């Protein structure tokens, strides 16, 4: 206990964060990296091709998990993320067809994400119902609207958006010709949200709201708007991912994003976020999102049947949470 608690003043705050809540995630992450490196044929896991692929694909879920993690810290859930992604992608495509300028479309799409998040927040907070239910409802509602509205036809974007525009470069190009822009965005957004959560007063309110809502209220924090703010952050990140996915895949599909909602929660939990709120860190969530996806990728490369991967990940999540809460109990006693 003493080692963790009496942190020497010389240690930087960042180091403290890593050594503190995210320690387990760091260890698991490193172990997985080593296992996959040495147990895949020809160390194909670490090949530049696989790493390039991972850094292109992982940010999709990763960016959403960042939002979900923060939302979970303030004590709420969002099951509607996948539907928000799809709705935002759909609106993006419609506007693109209509000939609106690209950057305006991007701003409208991000605004739409924020609005959908706001709606989730208002329903949860003003309706006084669990966000689990509110967003479960919205998840089904938006997906249904989308199925009808798009008649379930996929829509390609290449007819309206020639490849290689500067707009596309910004979102899904390659930094210095090597690093996928998605990876840069993921790291950048994680850094911004990390600074917001750990050093800004809003972050303090998020933790306080999730940890002891009554206390936060008694101290004058408007916990309703803190929660709504977190829902909006999630919405904006979903819209962002919608744009990334559209540009990478080149077409809209009405089933887009399905499965993200639970995987994002799993990623946050693996990153040390507690379902009960109040505990978690951006470093942890970041690594949690990577861990889940590296596990998926690594297992496939090790020759595990693709459709059986879920079984492994499911077990891994349970084991990880058991480990996490065990360490937490040890730490407190």
């Amino acid at each position, binding site marked *: *206990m003493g080692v963790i608690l009496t942190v020497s003043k010389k240690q930087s705050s960042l180091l*403290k964060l890593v050594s503190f809540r995210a320690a387990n995630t760091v260890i698991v992450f490193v172990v997985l990296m080593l296992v996959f490196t040495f147990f895949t044929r020809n160390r194909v896991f670490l090949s530049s091709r696989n790493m390039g692929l991972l850094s292109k694909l992982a940010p999709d879920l990763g960016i959403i998990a960042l939002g979900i993690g923060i939302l979970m810290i303030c004590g709420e859930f969002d099951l509607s993320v996948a539907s928000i992604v799809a709705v935002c992608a759909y609106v993006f495509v419609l506007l693109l067809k209509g000939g609106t300028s690209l950057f305006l479309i991007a701003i409208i799409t991000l605004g739409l994400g924020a609005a959908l998040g706001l709606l989730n927040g208002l329903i949860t907070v003003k309706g006084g119902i669990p966000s689990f239910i509110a967003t479960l409802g919205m998840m089904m509602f938006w997906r249904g609207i989308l199925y009808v509205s798009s008649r379930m036809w996929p829509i390609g974007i290449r007819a309206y958006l020639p490849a290689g525009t500067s707009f596309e470069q910004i979102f899904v190009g390659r930094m210095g010709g090597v690093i996928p822009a998605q990876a840069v965005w993921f790291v950048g957004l994680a850094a911004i949200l990390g600074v917001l959560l750990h050093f800004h*007063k809003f972050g*303090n*309110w998020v933790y*306080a709201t999730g*940890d002891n809502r009554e206390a*936060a209220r008694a*101290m*004058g924090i408007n916990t309703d708007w803190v929660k709504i703010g977190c829902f909006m952050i999630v919405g904006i990140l979903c819209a962002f991912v919608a744009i990334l996915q559209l540009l990478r895949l080149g077409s809209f599909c009405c089933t887009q994003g399905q499965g993200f909602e639970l995987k994002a929660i799993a990623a946050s939990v693996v990153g040390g976020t507690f379902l009960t709120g109040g505990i978690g860190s951006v470093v942890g969530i970041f690594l949690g999102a990577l861990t889940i996806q590296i596990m998926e990728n690594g297992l496939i490369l090790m020759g595990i049947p693709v459709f059986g991967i879920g079984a492994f990940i499911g077990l891994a999540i349970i084991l990880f949470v058991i480990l996490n809460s065990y360490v937490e109990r040890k730490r407190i006693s």
Partner: protein
Amino acid sequence: MKADSIGESRGVLVKMVNIHKWFGKVHALKGVDFEVKHSEIVGLVGDNGAGKSTLIKVLSGVYLAEEGEIFFEGRRANITSPGDARKLGIETVYQEQALAPNMSISRNIFMGREPTKALGFMDKKAMDKASMEALRNIRLDVASPDLLITVLSGGQRQGVAIARVLHFEAKLVIMDEPTIALSIKEAHQVLEFIKQLREENISVIFITHNLYHVFPVAERFVILGSGEKIADVEKKDTSIDHLTELIVREPSRL
């Protein structure tokens, strides 16, 4: 009034006059008068359901009284929310402890009132320094302002809550059953904190039904029963036995 002439020497900080509060058909406060002088510790005692908590919740802005007036430092105060009360310098230390267990001491002390540098970023150094200072002022010794509340004892937690009101320069601190869930040793520690508040010229309303805790620290005792004030006595004119008798006796017999 005679009571006022005594108070005049020290000055009345807060005065509640003829406070009435109904909850539906329940008449919870039936015209209660209550006052606290500067740097005075008042024990507000009475059995469960006597109206103690209701009275102080009116004062701290949690409840609105249907009738009655509150004067603070001689001026009529319009307290309609906890924020109003806090602006006047009335702080409450709740029995359920308004602390977030998984946050650090300094983050708890400044919860909702974080000192900031540019753009709303917290001034962590100032927070840590002020936290340690406030804790030292009530003689609570902790290793670091980064300790999480969850590792502290119950007494230390109350200490953090008290340090918080001290830092924000409260003039009146309301303590609602601050010793109720504590061991004997921890309760003793909290009583020491309360004495420290008086050293800082802060008035305290100490609500409890444990006379053995309140008697050594309070100077005056106000007893409530069934929403009415039964007695208002200086310590020199009473004893624990006498107070117990007053509480147990039915108000109607007075």
